[in-house]
């Protein structure tokens, strides 16, 4: 039992969060195995980002427990100090510092949270840029880089502290299908290279199924399904089916629109 527990880097139980009368998380629970890629799927507005921000300590949950490497995170700044040093967060918007160069962006977490010398910080930052293949852009500001390079820069900043856990908040939001594939491939590649545990929230089902070890479906504030990508594909769960069959539903709707007899529902 203990050995099983130690396999899990992150354990969440009964996580609840409401904004006024709107219940976003109604008791979410899951466990993420060390060194795995775990993806939380869900439609837009399902509360995936809120869930991730609760885990990262950016949003305070109303109830529930979060355990990181067996340690309970109570939510207070003290209890999370060690947690922040061992995890990173990759934002949907990248959240890069636009007044700092790429190299300075990557160096920032090392400068502020470690006792490394300036030389060591520079070497580690350059190494991270090299690993993400953007070493030639260290002197550029984020605004001067393409969308894909900005994403890689954000990942370089996330991994430079050598975290054990990286949170990915909608890493492919707003990207075209080719770039979406490239981002998931990048996450899978660097996850293998650096060995961190990845917790991804996304609504890109196809790519997530290919890149993940386990997936969970967040709908109506709860985990509606959890299992391997194969189990997900074979699942008969109604919410899973609806999510998986959305392409089929789109085809039906479009056919009806072309026939001229369709009335779009509120869900559309």
């Amino acid at each position, binding site marked *: 039992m203990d050995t099983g527990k130690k396999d899990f880097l992150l354990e969440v139980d009964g996580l609840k969060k409401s904004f006024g009368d709107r219940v976003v998380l109604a008791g979410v629970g899951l466990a993420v195995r060390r060194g795995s890629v775990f993806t939380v799927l869900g439609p837009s507005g399902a509360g995936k980002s809120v869930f991730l921000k609760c885990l990262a300590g*950016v949003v305070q949950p109303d109830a529930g427990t979060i355990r990181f490497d067996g340690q309970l995170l109570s939510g207070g700044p003290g209890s999370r100090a060690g947690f922040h040093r061992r995890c990173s967060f990759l*934002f949907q*918007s990248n*959240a890069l510092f*636009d*007044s700092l160069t790429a190299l300075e962006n990557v160096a*920032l*977490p090392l400068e*502020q*949270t470690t006792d490394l010398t300036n030389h060591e910080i520079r070497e580690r930052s350059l190494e991270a840029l090299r690993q993400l293949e953007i070493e030639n852009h260290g002197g550029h500001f984020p605004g001067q880089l393409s969308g894909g390079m900005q994403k890689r820069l954000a990942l370089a900043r996330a991994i430079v502290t050598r975290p054990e856990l990286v949170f990915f908040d909608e890493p492919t939001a707003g990207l075209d299908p080719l770039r979406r594939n490239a981002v998931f491939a990048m996450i899978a590649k660097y996850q293998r290279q650096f060995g961190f545990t990845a917790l991804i929230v996304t609504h890109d089902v196809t790519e997530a199924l290919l890149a993940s070890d386990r997936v969970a479906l967040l709908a109506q504030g709860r985990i509606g399904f959890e299992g391997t990508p194969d189990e997900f594909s074979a699942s008969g769960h109604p919410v899973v089916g609806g999510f998986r069959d959305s392409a089929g539903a789109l085809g039906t709707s479009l056919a009806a629109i072309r026939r001229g007899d369709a009335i779009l529902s509120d869900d559309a």
Partner: protein
Amino acid sequence: MLKLLGGQTLRVIAGLGDLALFTGESFRSAGKSRRLGRRIARAVYEQGTLCLPVILIVGMFTGLVLGLQGYYVLNRFGSAGLLGALVSLSLVREMGPVLAALMLVGQAGSALAAELGIQRNSEQIVALETMGVSSHGYLVAPRLIAALLVFPLQTALFVAVGLWGGSLSGSLLLGVDSGVYWSAVERAVEAPDVRECFLKAATFGLLTISICAYHGFNAHRCRGATGARAVSASTTRAVVHSSIVVLVADYVITSFLV
């Protein structure tokens, strides 16, 4: 009506309390922030060097106008020789600290509020928190410490340029003897006047930079506006509130020291 007034008063008191906590947290976090010196130097550059032209221009014209107005008033009573005393005391005790602070609010304060507002909007502040970096210590504390240095220095510069402007209009244009002007300055200004000047400048610096940082940092809490509008509204609010606070604080300090 009474309910509305009471509600507004409570909101102002709560806001002042929140501002005090924000400032306290920023100073507290400064101790934990690494490489603070470099960020203070950067803030000194932003508040000091970049605001230098406006301080020089406004200081010069304030001195010129004081010299002109002072000469015509004093000349009516046959006391044009006291022009140096009038210009220097006006500048050192009141106009220097107040006008320099207002100029710094307009340039450095508004830029700070807008920068922090944009950083809040683009999740840069949240990103710092997820890295385990205190956003107060990293973004606000260096600016507050820099303000305690820059505002008195900029005020001193404003006064010096203003005195020279007063001498320019008094001596060169209106014929007051230069020696008489500068000796009146020397006789009029005493140590308590200079102390008052620096006390006011440091207080204005602390208050205005706190207010501007507070509004920018909390742009997401701006009522009735989101996104770019929230940044614009919080910047406007920062400048208006800072300007009012400068004048109120000036009155309070003067009433205690006079």
